[in-house]
């Protein structure tokens, strides 16, 4: 299960570096935030409620506070090239906000984010996002496009040759474990939830991005499918060698996948370390509680099994 990268010396520049990043939302009523991006990708939070591009976590948090709150509060972290980092925290802890700031769907109010040493604020958001893969919980496949068209959306916008698009789709479908000829002409509505996630993953990988952002991609699939997808993700990470940032609220998922885990609460980074170190030396009472709750669950399963065996006799 150890798939860590020993490349600190190899690549001195971190893949992603957060420097004192913070983001403040100041909506206080029940309406969700409306974030509109201009062509330059700057997000404008508007007061209107409907049709919002909202961050549910942010609006949930906004309800709690009197006026304004920090979704992400002075967070600094370094992610090395090739790492698979999981970001763990409960709803409203700022993990999704952090991820969305990384591809400039949200703009930080302060601090800076560096991608391979370059400030992302100085880059064109559209170009920046094309260098990163982005997968969300709902998969977000376009229902009016076939699997093939979905996967090759960005390659086609980049005006790749049709043959090159087709080859890449074949390659990607095979990579995510789906028979290319069987699936390429299907529509998303003809796929199961797990298959849709696989296509979502394939689409994000289409242009071979060095950084992948995954926002609870397996949050809406059943436990067995999730286990399969997690294994596939580990394999894909190994094969592509990219830097993966994986947001989850599932502690088992976070510790199973991440070669380092970032634990967040209330917009702050509590601990960032390998799963083993976190379990051995929790840096914070919250982290301790988190681990204890996971262990309690474990104990429940173990005791149930013993109980079942006892009653079998």
């Amino acid at each position, binding site marked *: 299960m150890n798939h860590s990268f020993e490349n600190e010396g190899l690549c001195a520049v971190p893949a992603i570096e957060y420097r004192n990043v913070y983001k403040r939302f100041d909506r206080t009523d029940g309406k969700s935030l409306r974030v509109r*991006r*201009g*062509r330059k990708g700057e997000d404008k939070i508007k007061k*209107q*409620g*409907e*049709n*919002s*591009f*909202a961050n549910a976590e942010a609006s949930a948090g906004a309800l709690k506070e009197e006026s304004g709150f920090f979704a992400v509060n002075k967070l600094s972290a370094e992610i090395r090239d090739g790492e698979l980092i999981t970001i763990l925290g409960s709803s409203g802890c700022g993990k999704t906000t952090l991820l*969305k700031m990384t*591809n400039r*769907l949200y703009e930080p109010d302060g601090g800076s984010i560096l991608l391979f040493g370059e400030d992302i604020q100085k880059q064109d958001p*559209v*170009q*920046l*996002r*094309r*260098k*990163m893969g*982005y997968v*969300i*919980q*709902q*998969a*977000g496949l*376009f*229902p*009016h496009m076939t699997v093939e068209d979905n996967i090759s*959306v*960005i390659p086609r*916008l980049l005006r790749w040759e049709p043959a090159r698009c087709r080859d890449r789709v074949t390659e990607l479908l095979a990579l995510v474990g789906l028979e290319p000829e069987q699936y390429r002409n299907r*529509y998303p*509505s*003809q*796929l*199961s939830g797990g298959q849709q996630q696989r296509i979502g993953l394939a*689409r*994000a990988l289409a242009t071979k991005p060095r950084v992948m*952002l995954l926002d609870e991609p397996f949050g809406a699939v059943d436990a067995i499918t999730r286990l399969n997808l997690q294994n596939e993700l580990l394999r894909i990470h190994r094969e592509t060698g990219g830097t993966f940032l994986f947001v989850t609220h599932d502690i088992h998922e976070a510790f199973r996948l991440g070669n380092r885990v970032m634990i967040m609460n209330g917009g702050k980074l509590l601990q960032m370390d390998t799963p083993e170190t976190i379990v051995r030396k929790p840096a914070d009472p919250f982290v301790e509680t988190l681990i204890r709750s996971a262990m309690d669950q474990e104990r429940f399963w173990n005791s149930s099994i013993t109980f079942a065996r006892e009653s079998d006799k």
Partner: protein
Amino acid sequence: MWAKMLEYILTHRAALLAQIGTHLWISLAALAAAVLIGVPCGYLAANSPGTEKWISAPFHVLRVIPSLAILVLLIPVAGTGALPAVIALTILAVPPVLLNTIVGFRDVPPFMTESAAGMGMTDKEILWKVRIPLAMPMIFAGIRTALVEVIASAALAARIGAGGLGEVIFTGLGLNRMDLLLLGGVLVAALSLLCGGLFDALARSLMPYRNLARQQ
């Protein structure tokens, strides 16, 4: 009566065809105008909720006035003939197109546009490749409603000399001939159903993904 209807059809074949033609022409012109007005206005209204009531309210008010009254009211402004008929029918046809366009754009799930933006699509690409195609089924449903309504109401246009199948109905009324009344009514209904069916076929061929059952 059936014999009389059949006889009328045979003797007035050319006139009937011309009336059907005029009827269709007036209806489709009104529908086209309604789409040209309704879809862009609906897009604007969906984008900024503040403007919605200003955009849709006038059409709701106008729609309450019966089409016949609008036709008569338009005579001093637009005279008689086809033009006032097209205007009155456009007023009738805009609300369903407008409302469905607003709903269509509103109902595009935020995660879908966000996913598109996160992939690196520009706002323009998101509009043309994601938002419009996703709003399309709803817009088409609105156009279909408007189409059927307009064809049915276009019969009134004959009242102000615009022609169409309404002429048959009004002649029947004037001469107290049940066969003509029935013939006109049946033809209008048949035309309306036929156009609705054709439109459905068009929508199906443009949006194949709408009719798929999940198959493993």
